[in-house]
């Protein structure tokens, strides 16, 4: 890439673009880029507000999260300079998102299907709290009230 002409602005103009001189060679974005990103973010904000008035039922959350993720990606890549940064920093972000995905998937998988476990295993499971764990009796013996003390 040595023949590529230097059409990017770089900080630290006073020195030649020798990448091994130990100086910081951070990419300097243009005003135009940053302002364009800002207006794109405004556009997606308006879009998510507008779409919230359309009755999408359960897809409402999915659509909101997808639009928010597009906005988040714009902020990470452009405003937070991941585009021009050391790739390892992007890897840290991706690793965090991956583990959030694992956390989310395992937890929601548990809490969403507690009653379905009920029908399959014959276990009696409380929908909200899961008070009786899967594996409890289908027809539990009713608890007899403690006999009144005989005098």
């Amino acid at each position, binding site marked *: 890439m040595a023949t590529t002409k230097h059409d990017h602005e770089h900080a630290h103009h006073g020195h030649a673009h020798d990448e091994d001189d130990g100086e910081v060679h*951070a990419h300097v974005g243009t005003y135009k880029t940053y302002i364009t990103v800002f207006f794109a973010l405004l556009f997606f904000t308006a879009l998510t507000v507008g779409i*919230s008035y359309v009755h999408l039922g359960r897809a409402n959350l999915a659509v909101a999260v997808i639009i928010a993720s597009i906005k988040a990606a714009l902020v990470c890549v452009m405003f937070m300079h991941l585009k021009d940064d050391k790739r390892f920093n992007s890897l*840290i972000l991706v690793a965090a998102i991956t583990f959030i995905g694992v956390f989310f998937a395992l937890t929601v998988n548990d809490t969403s299907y507690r009653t379905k476990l009920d029908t399959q295993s014959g276990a009696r499971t409380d929908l909200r709290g899961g008070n009786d764990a899967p594996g409890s009796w289908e027809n539990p013996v009713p608890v007899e009230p403690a006999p009144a003390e005989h005098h």
Partner: protein
Amino acid sequence: MSASTDSHDHPKWLQHHFDTPEQQFDAAKLGMWIFLAQELLFFSGLFVAYAVFRNWYPEAFAAGSHELNRPMGAANTTVLLFSSLTAALAVRSSQLGKKDETSGWIGATILCACIFLVVKYFEYHAKFEHGLLPGSFYGTPRDMLSFQKLEGHHSVASELPPHTHVFFSLYFVMTGVHAIHIIVGIGIWLWILKRNLRGDFSTRYFTPVDTTALYWHLVDLVWIYLFPMMYLIDYVPPGHKG
């Protein structure tokens, strides 16, 4: 040690354990990104709680969401996005060694942060007055300043579906923790502004401005998700399977 710190090869701002400005810059950014990853994992606990409870109580979440002030939420979103722009421009001018411009953009960022908090205050105040409070406080209208019960005030809470207090618990915890991040961010920006005015930064050393902006963008990122998830829930009629 002090004899060599002012030499050309080792300027004052370059810590003695780093060989070059580039090495120090990369290490600082790496450290900041690891901290931001921790922040995301920290917030993810709240977002997972949100997912679980919204899954369980969709009507309550829709009803609670409709009690929030959409125009105020949208305005605050715009303010925060704009503050991310000014933060990015502060880094840009700092990279180019334009000290006064940097101060201006940092000042604009701090101003946006303050506007955000003022709007948030009015939103919280309205919720407190209507008894839309977290957990066991839910249903009791209160004055936000004195936290006295407001006798005779109508509680909107009584007309909402069961479990709506869960929505407001999450609303206050999530937006509250976010607001704490805004307040911390204002403090850090003020410190960076002071250092910029003092002349600490140059084209060779602008790392603190860069890393502070990274933190600020993260606060913006969290709000990007909070806004639609709190304010923009569509109403699902009971029994209607979308």
